[in-house]
């Protein structure tokens, strides 16, 4: 962490170890460089006739049915085609069938139930397809997987299979279940989530509207508390965080089949709300320093550099505590919220960077350009 800087009472000002303004293009360049892969994947998704959206939309936004089955028999890759075929027969061609990694809690119960039986060949265990589920689940805890290797689940639920299909109505899923059970024995429906296309469209437009409103309200609030140029710079930094986060998930969508749902929009909004925290802390210090050094006629750039350095430790520490709780949730929490938590982690990390290295630097560049000679205007709320 940085050396602590005391507020100066003399005219010689110690700006701190980090000269942000001097390396401003470097810091902005780093941001742009990090945005590039995401932007590439967003473009790739847009051009993909299968997706035609910046991110791979889940059933929340596209409509469809997600089923998660707990098979009592162990299923492996060849079964995927057979399961797919059952869905084809019922008119749901093109359904995506994936074998999920064994999950603590569910398969653990299975272990307890089937403990007396001997475990089947271990080699069979994680026959994964290297696709979404494999990658996502692979990010689970190592302890879980090792545990599973020791005690291969054999009981009530041996394998978890997820299926994404077009929106199902009526009793079709019951018939499909019956057909599957005739081949595989008892199957527990772990979850079913089905959303009609019209509702999905509405959820998507509501979500996007919420994002736009969040931006507008935050610019409004910051303009009210600070000044308009402060607000604009904060929002450009926010935009950076949002685009980075969207880009990462566009990439996950292409590489691991990760889809975005309502919870993703929630995480983006949370990131928007949180990542201005650090920016506000720096801006608050700039505002205070502008008042303190008003008579000293210090250039804005100096004030900015000083303020960022003075608040550096707290910017990093406040983000760290949030990251600590989110990492705990990522590694030990449930599968359902894992992507959601990952999005918050990525967003908060990006937000910390942009608050320190982008927002204030841009503000200084703006002020330098706008009012080069009389750089000092106290920024009162």
């Amino acid at each position, binding site marked *: 962490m940085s050396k602590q800087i005391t507020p100066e009472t003399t005219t010689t000002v110690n700006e701190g170890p980090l000269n942000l303004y001097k390396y401003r293009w470097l810091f902005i360049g780093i941001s742009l460089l990090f945005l590039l892969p995401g932007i590439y994947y967003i473009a790739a998704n847009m051009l993909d006739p299968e997706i035609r959206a910046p991110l791979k939309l889940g059933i929340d936004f596209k409509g469809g049915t997600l089923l998660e089955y707990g098979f009592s028999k162990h299923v492996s890759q060849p079964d995927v085609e057979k399961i797919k075929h059952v869905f084809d027969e019922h008119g749901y061609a093109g359904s995506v069938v994936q074998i999920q990694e064994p999950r603590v809690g569910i398969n653990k119960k299975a272990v307890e139930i089937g403990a007396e039986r001997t475990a089947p060949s271990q080699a069979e265990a994680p026959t994964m397809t290297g696709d979404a589920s494999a990658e996502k689940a692979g990010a689970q805890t190592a302890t879980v997987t090792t545990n599973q290797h020791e005690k291969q689940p054999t009981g009530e639920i041996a394998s978890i299979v997820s299926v994404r299909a077009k929106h199902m109505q009526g009793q079709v899923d019951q018939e499909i279940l019956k057909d599957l059970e005739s081949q595989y024995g008892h199957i527990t429906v772990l979850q079913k989530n089905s959303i009609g296309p019209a509702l999905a469209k509405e959820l998507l437009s509501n979500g996007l509207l919420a994002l736009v409103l969040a931006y507008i309200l935050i610019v409004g*609030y910051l303009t009210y508390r600070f000044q308009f140029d402060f607000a604009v710079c904060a929002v450009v930094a926010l935009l950076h965080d949002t685009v980075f986060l969207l880009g990462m998930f566009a990439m996950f969508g292409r590489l691991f089949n990760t889809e975005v749902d309502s919870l993703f929009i929630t995480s983006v909004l949370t990131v928007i709300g949180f990542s201005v*925290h650090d920016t506000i802390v720096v801006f608050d210090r700039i505002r205070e320093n502008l008042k303190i050094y008003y008579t000293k006629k210090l250039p804005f750039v100096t004030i900015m550099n000083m303020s960022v350095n003075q608040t550096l430790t707290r910017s990093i520490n406040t983000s760290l505590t949030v990251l600590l709780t989110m990492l*705990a949730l990522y590694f030990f929490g449930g599968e359902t919220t894992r992507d959601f938590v990952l999005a918050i982690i990525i967003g908060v990390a990006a937000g910390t960077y942009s608050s320190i290295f982008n927002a204030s630097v841009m503000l200084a560049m703006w002020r330098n350009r706008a009012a080069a000679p009389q750089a000092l205007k106290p920024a009162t709320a």
Partner: protein
Amino acid sequence: MFKNPKVNLLIIVVLIMASLWTVVKDKDNIRLGLDLKGGTRLTLQAEPTPDVPKIRPADMDSLQTVIERRVNGMGIGESVVQRAGENRLIVEIPGVKDPDEAKRLLGRVGKLEFKKLDAQRQWVNTGVSGKDFTKADVATQQSGEWIVQFTLSPSGAKKFADLTRELAPTRAPIGIFFDDEQVSAPAVNEPILDGSGMIEGNFTHETAKELVDTLNAGALPVDIDVVEENTIGPLLGQSSIKQSLFAGLIGLGLVLAFMILCYRMRGFVAGMALLVYTLLTFAIFMTVGVTFTLAGIAGFILSIGMAVDANILIFERTKEELRAGRSKWKAVEVGFDRAFPSIFDSNTTTLITCLLLWVMGTGAVKGFALTLAIGVGVSMFSAITVTRTFLHLIDNASGEPTGAPVKA
């Protein structure tokens, strides 16, 4: 709050006791969302038909009454039927065995029939049904009694006139059946010839309204569409709740360790305040009746990480003030005062996004927004008042240099 830390301490202790009492008292009544206890959530949408080109709020009242009646008829406690938007109902049924049966039962239009008793005192059809009904209303008589008024369609009026002419002499009852279940059986006092009549009989406003909604629902030719279905098996729920609680404890422990490592004594004090925060917030959740969902728990855990942010801002500021040569007490006070604007501003932006999520979001999203917002609100109290009180008390009691510079 108050200048005297001892008064503050007293308030804090009272709050802790009250919270503990709430948590212990209600620990068995924690409301778990469907994603945690398993169950089915259905979103039903009323679709206009040629007869009802536009769905009005009154139509939704009727529909809701009917759906509630049906859901309760399934005999599974704690079901919730909520309005959502202009034309939707959200139905949550915990632990349902057969979601498809539930869907079939809820996703159809109600059947309203008027029956009479035959010679064997069995209910038989009269040919008068919901189609013959125009509308029902709650009204009061001059005596102030609540009654139900109803109007029939022209064709219905004729059928009803014949029926009541037959039943009136013996004051025989008309059985009103909804979905083959008897909802009322008023005796016919006199023939109803002009197509409008009334039902009286010790109604309260609520019971009258319920009958009105049922009658109207039977006359409501809207289609019901199941636009969303979400079923979580109980196994999945059980496993998720344990994982989330475990993750929450780990998160709390990590934050405590981080604060103590970074800020030593003051970090420890902040950690104590964080425990108070966790307890208070949890007690508020239970008092308000927050339904815990996975996303809600995530919001709570996130708020634990955010709650100490205020302390970090304050402590860093206190360090600066100490270096500038202020006394311990003064440094703490200035630290709190100077850090406040940024704490306030940053929490406000989070509350703005919570508000948007609450307004725009559905189920899980709302739960997250609510827990995060409550958490942020309580953290303003715990991180500022509780920490300040603790710090001053330690300072007073032991002369411990609460504001002593620590390694950053």
